[in-house]
């Protein structure tokens, strides 16, 4: 095995520093008062206003209408992130199941149709999607926020590859054991896909959590604001000579970063397992 040498550590440390430094700066800065930040710029030292700032961010009724708190935004972000991830997994597993295990006319064509949509980012279809949602009266609803984004070529593709690698004999054994298509899916395929589900959940959760453009279009009611939008909102409050609440913006950014980081850190071993090995 390759032995780690001094130089390897230097490279890794440099990498770590590059990645972590901005986060540290953001966190340190968030503990200072807004005026200080306005005057002195970014901080690398502890400012001592941690408690106030974070409590303020999480509980103060903000926004134009004064009814949205940071906690509410955290909740919205979670609803979006989890709804997004769970929905995508359910949908793409079912799609992949149909593609891999059922012979239907044009099955291959459908697969390639789904597959090519990988090339189309959300932004390309954002206006038509918005149009549809407006017509359906789903603006300012969680449904409107989540459902249009659920179809996932990436997820479908990953699950398809995974299902294809499951030995046929397993399906045959299950058939002889009296498991129909539904039972086979629930009893055999889903448990076998556990690590894969975890991996895709993480990717999709982070993706959903970080959505900015779509929530901005779909919701103008502030009670639907997510953290990511909240950050922007704080910086917009620039009434007269008032200084924007830089500290709060940074605090919010840190809060917005935290859950995805936690999810990744906690599930990383599953994540790697899901993408690299299969439990067969």
């Amino acid at each position: 095995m390759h032995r780690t040498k001094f130089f390897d550590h230097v490279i890794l440390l440099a990498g770590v520093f590059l990645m972590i430094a901005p986060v540290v700066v953001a966190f340190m800065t968030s503990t200072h008062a807004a005026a200080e930040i306005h005057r002195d710029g970014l901080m690398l030292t502890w400012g001592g206003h941690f408690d106030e700032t974070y409590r303020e961010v999480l509980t103060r009724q903000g926004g134009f209408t004064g009814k949205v708190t940071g906690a509410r935004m955290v909740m919205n972000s979670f609803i979006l992130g989890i709804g997004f991830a769970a929905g995508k997994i359910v949908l793409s597993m079912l799609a992949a199941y149909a593609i891999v295990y059922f012979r239907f006319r044009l099955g291959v064509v459908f697969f390639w149709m789904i597959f090519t949509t990988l090339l189309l980012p959300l932004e390309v279809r954002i206006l038509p999607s918005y149009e549809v949602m407006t017509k359906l009266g789903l603006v300012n609803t969680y449904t409107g926020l989540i459902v249009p984004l659920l179809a996932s070529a990436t997820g479908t593709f990953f699950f398809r590859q995974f299902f294809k690698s499951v030995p046929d004999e397993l399906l045959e054994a299950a058939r002889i054991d009296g498991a129909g298509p539904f039972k086979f899916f629930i009893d055999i395929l889903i448990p076998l896909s556990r690590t894969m589900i975890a991996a895709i959940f993480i990717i999709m959760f982070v993706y959903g959590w970080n959505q900015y453009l779509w929530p901005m279009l779909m919701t103008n009611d502030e009670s639907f604001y997510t953290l990511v939008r909240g950050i922007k909102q704080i910086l917009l409050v620039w009434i007269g000579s008032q200084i924007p609440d830089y500290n709060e913006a940074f605090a919010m950014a840190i809060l917005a970063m935290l859950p995805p980081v936690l999810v990744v850190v906690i599930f990383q071993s599953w994540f790697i397992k899901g993408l690299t090995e299969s439990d067969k």
Partner: protein
Amino acid sequence: MAHVTIDRVSKDYQAGVRAVDSVSIDIADSEFIVLVGPSGCGKSTLLRMVAGLETITEGEIGIGGRVINHVDPADRDIAMVFQNYALYPHMTVRNNMAYGLKNRGMNRADIEKRVAEAAAILRLQDYLERRPRQLSGGQRQRVAMGRAIVREPAAFLFDEPLSNLDAKLRVDMRGEIKQLQKRLGTTSIYVTHDQLEAMTMADRIVVLNGGRIEQIGTPLDVYRQPQSAFVASFIGSPAMNLITARGESGNLVIGDQTVVMDGAMTVPDGPVTLGVRAEDMKPADHGATAHLELAIDYVEELGAGRLVHGHVGDARLALSTPSGEPLSDLLPIVFDRQRLHLFDTATGRRL
């Protein structure tokens, strides 16, 4: 327990590609039938048609008197053991065995009882809570057997269940499966490409070649009376010597030598394929008249005996002899002339 009838069954995977060609086998209740043949001869295909995993192109398959051509695999009352075992990787041994019973709506107490019984028979009691991953190959094999046993089906279907095991374990499991089958009395169809497995396990052997049946018979039948040159070459180890010879006024001409038959069997005039097993020849005793003189090429020492390879003209022969004194280059040999086999050179059928 039931008899299985396979009546003129054929299988086309694509139009024009026959994997199985008009095969008929009547399998008696409690019988252990082994389908044997070289790779690609259609053994698995035939078995999978019985299991319901492949559609039947032509013909009829019946289990216990009921035609099951269009019956779902789950409702055919069969259990199958796969080559790679096909255990459910995420389930414990217990659940692997219980799954088929649960799906059939059996109550918990009965399931427990059956699993416990099967585990006891297969010595798996200590492994019931393990996952397949945590078992050795032989143990996995037994779990696969257990999954079949607990169902108490009308027939067991085995598709090369031992070929993933090492040689020693294979011999052990061979005996175990055979014993188990005798004890349970369940009709079994067993697929293998290993003629030794076929010989040792079968009540009757079905030799398949190119999707057709070459011969059906007891192991001894098939060994002693091979109905075709193919069967002769496939069954038995070392493989039967098959050499071209010529019939001339009741005697056999091999190369430039003549084997005098003295009417031991009728030899038609003209070219024939002569089959002779290595153990049906021996070096001629001193003074006795030899049938043939074999030019020795090399000798394989096997411990219990040895295998002498040589030739007569273009024809290559191997005979087994007891180990002992060194051999000269030219070995006079005698045949057990009743045990010679003659096959039609063109069709390969027994004469």
